[in-house]
């Protein structure tokens, strides 16, 4: 098994120490930092996404796999600075909307997007629209990803979109929404650019909507 295959397996199995060790060994053997992403981390997290979608993996398995992936990316990321070849695919400002404290789903989406090569600005939970707008400006984000788990709070997604419009930023970003009570139709009705049914769905969506210039 190649070191990439081993690393993929370690991530899928959620073995963070093994993932770190394999990454370090690979670097010592002369593998370029950016090569790990397309050859190990991204395919591993895609596989995790597939298993999640097929009900093979549940929240705990996904979280430990994401933790293992993060073990590898934490080592690699500092080595990538200034390397043109590994510019992030896009920058995503992510958060759970105001009034809602649900964290887990949003974290899974953030970790999967990160493993897929996006730069993540995670604002946490109960995030007011103004804070979202500010972060978009500050980080020149091209995506805003919003999560809500309650039917009573999902309406606050609309408030974020309105705040982006008011700040003149709406055409600068793609707005992705997700969460258990949402539907595709509802997402469109509030003017979102896309609805992620689950975490792998959100990653697919983000990949599809990546602006050509980014």
């Amino acid at each position, binding site marked *: 098994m190649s070191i990439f295959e081993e690393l993929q397996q370690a991530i899928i199995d959620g073995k963070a120490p093994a993932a770190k060790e394999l990454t370090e060994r690979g670097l010592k053997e002369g593998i370029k930092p950016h090569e790990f992403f397309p050859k190990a981390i991204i395919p591993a997290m895609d596989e995790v996404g597939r298993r999640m979608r097929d009900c093979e993996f549940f929240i705990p398995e996904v979280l430990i796999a994401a933790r293992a992936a993060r073990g590898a990316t934490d080592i690699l990321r500092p080595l990538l600075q200034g390397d043109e070849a590994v510019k992030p695919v896009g920058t995503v400002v992510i958060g759970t909307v105001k009034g809602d404290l649900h964290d887990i789903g949003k974290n899974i989406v953030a970790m999967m997007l990160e493993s897929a090569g996006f730069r993540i600005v995670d604002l946490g939970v109960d995030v007011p629209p103004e804070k979202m707008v500010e972060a978009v400006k500050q980080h020149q984000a091209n995506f805003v990803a919003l999560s809500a788990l*309650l039917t*009573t709070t999902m309406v606050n997604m609309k408030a974020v979109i309105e705040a982006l419009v008011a700040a003149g930023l709406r055409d600068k970003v793609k707005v992705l929404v997700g969460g258990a009570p949402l539907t595709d139709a509802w997402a469109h009705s509030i003017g979102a650019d896309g609805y992620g049914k689950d975490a792998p769905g959100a990653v697919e969506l983000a990949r599809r909507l990546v602006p050509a210039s980014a």
Partner: protein
Amino acid sequence: MGTPLRDLLFEQGVEFPCGGQGRCRGCRIRVLEGKAEVNRAQRERLSPEEIEEGWRLACQCVVEGDLEIELRQWDSAILVDDTPFAFRPRQGLGVAVDLGTTTLVAQLLDLSTGKVMAVSTALNAQARYGADVMSRLHFAVLERGQHQLEILIRQQIGALIEQLLFSAGRLGAEIADIVVVGNTVMHHFFCGIAAEPLAHYPFEPVEGGLKTFRSSALGWKLAGDPLVRFLPCLGGFVGSDTLAGILAAKLLEHDDMVGLVDLGTNGEIVIGNKEGLLCASTAAGPAFEGAKISMGMRASTGAISQVTLSPPLDPLLTEEGSKASPLPLEEGTKVNPFPIEEGTNERCNHTRVFCRVIGDGTPRGLCGSGLVDAVAAGLELGVIATSGRFSKGEASWMLAPPVALTQNDIRELQLAKAAVAAGIKLLMQRKGAKELSRLYLAGAFGNYIDRASAQRIGLIDFPPERVEAAGNTALLGAKLALFSLDSEGGSYTEVRRRIEHVALNADPSFQDVFVEELAFP
């Protein structure tokens, strides 16, 4: 010629287990007012006493005029209370109401003897606007339906009280006091307090105290215009139904650490002893009530309510509720689609699962207690791994055709189980309680759930002998309140001072513990 009652009731959601052939007793009704003929099929299925009391098989009745009936079918889901209790006699009649999100129960009491004179139950009429508190809040706040919900529930409880007086033969009699208990959302809807603050973080009531009304102010025409008290909330979504439960289970009188858990879409948890109590609610979701489960249903006719690996000796569950009588078990045939090799696992020497079906008819679905049992059985057989996944990657497990358990059903149960288990764990940690000497399970689901199965899946991770089904403690507590209104008028200021509400969702460790608890033991 008249209209077949079956047609009328079917439209209302009443089920006919034998298909309306008069071969079972599943659709029996009690005629309260009006006339319904008894035919031969009914004489075969009903005793002369039952017929005398007005019981009929709905499928065999043809109605010629107005008829007022009571449905037997819903009873399995609604838990009343007939626990004896100590009280200081007072004069007059009293009414206790448990205003549940799903069900309503009201009892009329003779306050001089403590005797229950009449009981009436109903499904909460607000349920058409959402099954759980969050969807109802959505309707109230975002679709501006709160006033509508208020009118509905006030009218419905008013009618229940009329019905109580009628059943007791005391129509027009004066009632001394009426006590209502319910969770915070029900409190706000009934009392007409804006529910908007409950719809988002921090989910705290602005006005959760004792509310007192004259009956006439609620639109009820009752002799003597009695006072109606909605007892105070404890904080967050934890309402006076839990306060009543604390009173009924006497949690504040224990030296040892004890607990009270009410398993519903919002699971309420209380942990502590006479030194003080912590309470919290945890969003368990609707899995225990059968929603979001592929073949999930209410605990009514056709629901698999119990799953065991051998014919159970202890007839814990019967459709009669408390009256335990051995019912013939439907042998759910088959069972295990994953042949288990002998000797590979000592615990897997069973090859059959047995399913008990409410009403003994054809299985149609799975209710909460059946779901917990099925998963416990699957874990025991090795069909389900501790991660919650079917061990051989199958998509579903046939329990008793056509009812199967799917992979997604297990995931839904894991979410519900983890929310409750994490809540119990965190409250115990905060209280410094290493063990609980007793855990009371309140409510209908707590009454029907198998304690060994609840332990097996890690939902109620305590030895069954320390877990006690406490019944409808909300109703019992409301009745107790009728006898202690003189001191503080029902505000329970002293008691509430000893109960602290914990907002679990704001506890940073909650999500970690929740994730840990997703797996099965």
